[in-house]
């Protein structure tokens, strides 16, 4: 019940954004079947939002342990680059995907090792891979954009299965597995306890280090899958631009979803909503025709409003003036008299 109440604000914001779109485009909510697949603005939001949702899911668990992962954008680029390189060299799609995801997990484990094994602060530890990872991606692609033409690979991010975008199905699967592991099993509790106090958890018999390495590896795996989706959607790998700044969008999605950056508590549903809000905002900008020069300002304003509306302190100040402590009342009357 409490969890539902926390989700009410993100839900309202998402609904408001969708309403703005409906006001500008009458057929915004309509979904039809065209070319043998679902077609409509809502489908677009899900389809283009899928990589962000995945990255944000991974980010949620990392943040729940009190950490942060800045390197996911680079992992997105690396994974797409490696997969496209393998495919362009006539390796099988399956091998390409396994290699790309394997490398992603390895990179995530490296992050986890730096954080848990050596004790570097997460923001610094993952900054290393954030910067170096772009270089690695460019090394893989040789600074070029690798174009691939493989129908099987195309399916991951740009294809449809039974009229539903395949990427959305992947997200649903990952979400279901993550929710099961963290909410039906004890894993979620362990992650939250590590986020609350890693040392106390260790003394209580939880293997904090193992948990931390695992969540970073999971975040990187999610980023790796997102990287496959992004590169598959346009049938090309772009080491420079793929997943650029997605780590910031993901952190924003997690925060909008109500997960505290301090760790110790997380909400998967909130994160999904947060990511959808961000993608809907992007789509809104395109469809209502915000001029490109002011796009960033527009985004910033909306995000600021979203954050303010979510803050209980701000809401109390603005919406519940009358619920002030009684001692404040005489003062108000006094002012009125003198005026």
């Amino acid at each position, binding site marked *: 019940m409490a969890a539902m109440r926390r989700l009410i604000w993100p839900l309202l914001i998402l609904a408001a954004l969708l309403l703005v779109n409906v006001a500008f*485009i009458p057929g915004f909510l309509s979904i039809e079947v065209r070319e043998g697949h679902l077609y409509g603005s809502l489908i677009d939001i899900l389809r283009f939002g899928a990589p962000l949702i995945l990255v944000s899911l991974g980010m949620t668990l990392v943040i729940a342990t009190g950490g942060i992962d800045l390197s996911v954008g680079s992992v997105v680029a690396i994974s797409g680059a490696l997969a496209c390189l393998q495919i362009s060299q006539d390796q099988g799609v399956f091998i390409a995907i396994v290699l790309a995801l394997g490398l992603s997990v390895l990179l995530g484990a490296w992050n986890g090792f730096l954080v848990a094994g050596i004790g570097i602060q997460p923001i610094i530890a993952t900054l290393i891979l954030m910067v170096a990872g772009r270089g690695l991606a460019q090394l893989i692609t040789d*600074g070029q954009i690798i174009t691939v033409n493989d129908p099987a690979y195309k399916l991951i991010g740009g294809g449809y299965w039974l009229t539903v975008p395949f990427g959305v199905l992947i997200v649903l699967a990952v979400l279901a597995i993550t929710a099961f592991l963290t909410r039906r099993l004890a894993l979620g509790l362990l992650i939250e306890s590590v986020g609350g106090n890693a040392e106390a958890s260790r003394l209580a018999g939880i293997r904090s280090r193992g948990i931390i390495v695992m969540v970073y590896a999971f975040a990187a795996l999610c980023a790796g899958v997102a990287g496959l989706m992004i590169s598959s959607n*346009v*049938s090309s790998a772009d080491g420079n*631009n793929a997943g650029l700044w997605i780590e910031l969008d993901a952190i924003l999605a997690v925060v909008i979803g109500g997960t505290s950056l301090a760790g110790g508590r997380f909400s998967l549903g909130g994160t999904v909503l947060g990511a959808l809000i961000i993608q809907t905002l992007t789509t809104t900008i*395109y469809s209502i025709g915000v001029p490109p020069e002011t796009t960033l300002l527009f985004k910033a304003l909306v995000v600021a409003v979203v954050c303010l509306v979510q803050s209980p302190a701000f809401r109390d100040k603005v919406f519940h003036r009358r619920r002030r402590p009684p001692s404040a009342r005489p003062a108000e009357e006094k002012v009125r008299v003198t005026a």
Partner: protein
Amino acid sequence: MLKKISLLVAAAVVLAGCGGGDGTTSAGTGTGAGDDSIVMGFSQVGAESGWRTANTKSVQESAKSAGVELKFSDAQQKQENQIKALRSFIQQKVDVIAFSPVVESGWDTVLKEAQNAKIPVILTDRAVDSKDTSLYKTFLGSDFVEEGKKAGQWLVEEYKDAKDPVNIVELQGTTGSAPANDRKAGFAEVIGADPKFKIIASQTGDFTRAKGKEVMEAFLKSNPDIDVLYAHNDDMGLGAIEAIEGAGKTPGTDIKIITVDAVKDGMQALADGKINYIVECSPLLGPQLMDLAKKVVKGEQVPPRVVTEETTFTQEQAKQALPSRQY
């Protein structure tokens, strides 16, 4: 107190001495290298498109064959990276600096620093909007306004018999970049003469395929009646083609597509009939750049504006040109 001051003075003298010594030695090596070979610092925008990587290759290869030592730096689309790169070139005392500015404005300070260090600067591919043209020796590159005009002229010719309004959507390049500003302006100027041409939506696609696709998807939903797509580069156009196909329309027929650049993937799509017209923007300006660099270092006069030679392609011309295309 007095002791402290004298210590400071002594330290300052020592430091100044070191600095002076450093200056003379590095200046010595600098002139020594300048006798036979030129050192060029080149700051590239990034590798955002096939065009850009072809441009990079051209510069690197022609530097090698011209015997120019190239210090290459990739700005990854960010002006601050580029300014950092230029400052490091100035510190390294290169003989000549060449760069493609990420955006048009905000270059005066760093260009002044180069001028004070007596290092000539050549702009390649993109211009800066600085009022002081003495800050750089020459600008080698395409005329983006002309490219936009060429695109507009084809459109006017194609629809000269049409009576109905022509709905155009535009995919702009990176906001604030010279090619985006100029290609937009040139195109708007030509089609502005006839009120039947209407740009009904215009958004930035950052010159990338992924953004081109995403923005075009949104355009298709918010504007049911699109006749023409004008994309500021091939890659955005290629992304948009996927979006158009996904919407059940035929690119090149239901929606006419005009792009700029003529990279290989774009030319292939043109030959396949998915794009209708491409205005070429040649990235192979390496050889011209090396010639200019040599002249500038020798102190010879160079024209302040050098335009690269370029053409346009229709679908038929693309089929013929495709086999011999280098990039």
